[in-house]
């Protein structure tokens, strides 16, 4: 049981998992191929599930286990499956297109991480939970996910960005309050699934209308 282990072990483990999450986030930003992007997202979600499980273990809150299981079921299995199908269906020929290229993207993401840490610093100092350091990472992931949505042209990458933001939020909730009430988490999972489905359909429509999933073409809808 937790007590028999090293007292710092819990927070060390959680920090490790969080760092892995952040690492995969950077990997996604640096990735050029769409399908690899989705695979990395699945991996990120797996790390998220592990983080949640670790938190559940060290805080003795069984409902987080359920959330972790749901994360695996939905974010590492179902959604990547849907996204793969979408990629197959829309038959993306050229891989990821950028508004901002990879090297500057990575630099900006680094800056975002620094910003996240500096913003959360006063809050983390007040914290007493063993997950307190993860909050900064969670915020960083949210910001990077958002940045992904802006910096990438293809609709599929924007979905990935959106899902990354959601992962960041989930990590934030786990980190700052040992997870949200189960009913809220169930609702969020359902929302994310529906969002992924809707955006999938929307991508199809985009392909049908513009012969491309490049969302910059949407400017043509003006007027």
């Amino acid at each position, binding site marked *: 049981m937790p007590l028999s282990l090293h007292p710092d072990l819990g927070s060390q483990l959680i920090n490790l998992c969080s760092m892995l999450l952040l690492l995969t986030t950077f990997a996604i930003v640096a990735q050029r191929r769409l399908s690899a992007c989705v695979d990395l997202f699945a991996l990120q979600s797996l790390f998220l599930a592990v983080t949640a499980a670790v938190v559940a273990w060290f805080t003795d809150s069984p409902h987080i286990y359920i959330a972790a299981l749901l994360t695996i079921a939905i974010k590492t299995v179902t959604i990547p499956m849907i996204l793969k199908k979408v990629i197959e269906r829309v038959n993306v020929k050229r891989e990821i297109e950028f508004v901002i290229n990879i090297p500057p993207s990575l630099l900006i993401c680094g800056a975002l991480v620094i910003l996240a840490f500096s913003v959360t610093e006063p809050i983390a100092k007040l914290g007493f939970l063993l997950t307190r350091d993860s909050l900064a990472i969670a915020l960083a992931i949210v910001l990077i996910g958002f940045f992904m949505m*802006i910096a990438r042209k293809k609709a599929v990458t924007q979905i990935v960005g959106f899902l990354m933001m959601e992962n960041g939020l989930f990590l934030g909730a786990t980190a700052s309050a040992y997870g949200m009430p189960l009913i809220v988490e169930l609702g969020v999972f359902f929302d994310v699934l529906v969002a992924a489905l809707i955006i999938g359909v929307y991508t199809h429509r985009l392909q049908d209308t513009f012969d491309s999933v490049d969302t910059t073409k949407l*400017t043509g809808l003006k007027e």
Partner: protein
Amino acid sequence: MPFVDASGVVTATLLATIVLYGLGILLPQCCPRHPHLQNLFAHGAATLAAMSGIVLGLSGLFIDAPPVFSLPSTLPLLTIQFRLDPLSAFFVLLISLAGAAVSIYAVGYVREFESRHPIGLLGGLYNAFLLSMTLVVMADDGFLFLILWEIMSIVSYLLVVTEHEKADVRYAGFFYLVMTHVGTAFILVTYLVFFQQTGDFSFEGFRQSIASLPEGFRTIAFLGALIGFGTKAGIIPLHVWLPYAHPAAPSHVSALMSGVMIKTAIYGLIRVYFDFLGGDFPWWWGFTVLAVGAVSALLGVMYALMEHDLKSLLAYHSVENIGIILLGIGAGMIFQTYGLANLAALGLLAGLYHTLNHAVFKSLLFMGAGAVLSTTHTRNMEEYGGLIKTMPWTALFFLVGAVSISGLPPTNGFVSEWLTFQSLFLSFQLPDLLMKIMVPIGAAMLALTGALAVACFAKAFGITFLAMPRSQHAREAKEVAWPMRIGMGLLAVACLALGVAPMVVVPLLDRVTSGFTEATLAGRLVTEGGFALAPGLGIGFASISTPLLAILLIVIVPLTLLGVVLFGGRLRKRLYHTWGCGINLKPRMEYTATGFAQPIRQVFSMIYRPTVKVETEMLEESRYFAKRKTFELSLEPTFQKHLYDPVVRLFNLAAERLRVVQAGSLHLYLSYIFITLLVLLLWVS
């Protein structure tokens, strides 16, 4: 008082009114395939509800302690509370009185819509409109008032665009929607001024906030209410939507909008000025209201004279009559400033009396216009003519309305305009020299207004109903269905009754005004024996006995005829066509509406700025003989051109500049959010 248990009656009739209007909304939706049945359900329920509303209003006037009804509410700031004080009761009575007659009329009028429009929707909205008006004047909470006010505005917008397949109707609706929301924004400003003082939206809180309200805020509240409610009431220069929206709506809705809905704004003004602001005004407040009223009355009737669309003409007359009402209220406010409580009560009472009268005769006139419209299918007066022969009932009722609105005895318009005149004349009691001079100028403008109104309705009635039909439409006209005649007839009777028996009405109105001015007039305004009104209030000024006037009219006319018969020599009847100098008379020889208004247009060309274009095409053989002549006349829409168009242009320009932001790029929009987020994060850390 005649009611044994007035508060019991109030509770019962309030419930009955709400439930019946509710049924009027729901029942028509239950039988979507039977438009005729929907029509009957909707307007039958509305009639019953309005009748119950009449009882509610009457009993509310007699209760000394205003009954309060509250419902629990879970929303913050919102308290669902209604209060029926005499002012509210008076307006409930007014709304219901017109509502009952118009609902009966609607049963007949809506029949022609049955094949073209969804009656369930039209009838449901109609009931919702009446219900929202009834509730808005009873609301006892600022927030609730605004919600009901908005419901009223939006429902009336939906009714205006009933015939939305026509482009001009859609334009009128849009114009109305914009104006009414601008108005609501200003009302909101007024309420927020009160709210920030008390932190409470209840009307009771508003009343108490006054003691601590600084002078500047009081002025903001005054102006906000004047502009906000003035937009709805249609004071000049905020009147521009009326001549568009009122004609565009189906006629029974126009009758309610013009006759009743704009009165809710008068209610709002009185509520804010005399109730919340407590009647303690600087002199220029009352003077502003008076001036706005005088200008609205005069310009309203002048524009009405130039209008040849019967319903637009009536809409402009609403502007005029709102002006007359404001003259009374403004005079009341001035007297209040100088502590002349009796005269303040008199001015306010005159305004309220005219409010009631206008509701009755304007609804009647719009119903008459609707009757003409429903059988001729045109609103252009130049295509009417001779309708008195085919539609005698409509003609009679329209004539009663026309006489009323022109302010001639023995109808109600005369009584209230006379009272307004008296309260303006009595301004010689004011201590301030400037006011002593300015207020009678208002009376002079009112006199000019009255004269022009007579001219206008001589035109409206003469061109529409007299002489020969000017078009195929008019030749094929038929008398309208019975429900429509009954609806008009009821209000025509009400016009006469309110005109002949002011001594019954004045004590009722006195219960409203005495709450605000600390003066009861009932005993003094009505002379002993109850046959005459004497607004001098003990200083022996002027007095009038309306029943006597009516009797004189009834007696003098037969007496004159009798005299003619007795002393006028032998009468020989000879029926023959009008002599036309040997030429056959044709409708084209008739006096046109444009021709009728020409002298007035000439006199006031400074204001109208007419553009006349005459083109004559001569015969090729001789330039002394004209082949064809075309005549075009347009008036400059002064307010639209110089006041509204610049504002619209400014907005369009600003929108054009701001469009850069709205580039249509998803990434750009995401960046906006992202950058905002980052800035906020940096700002808090």
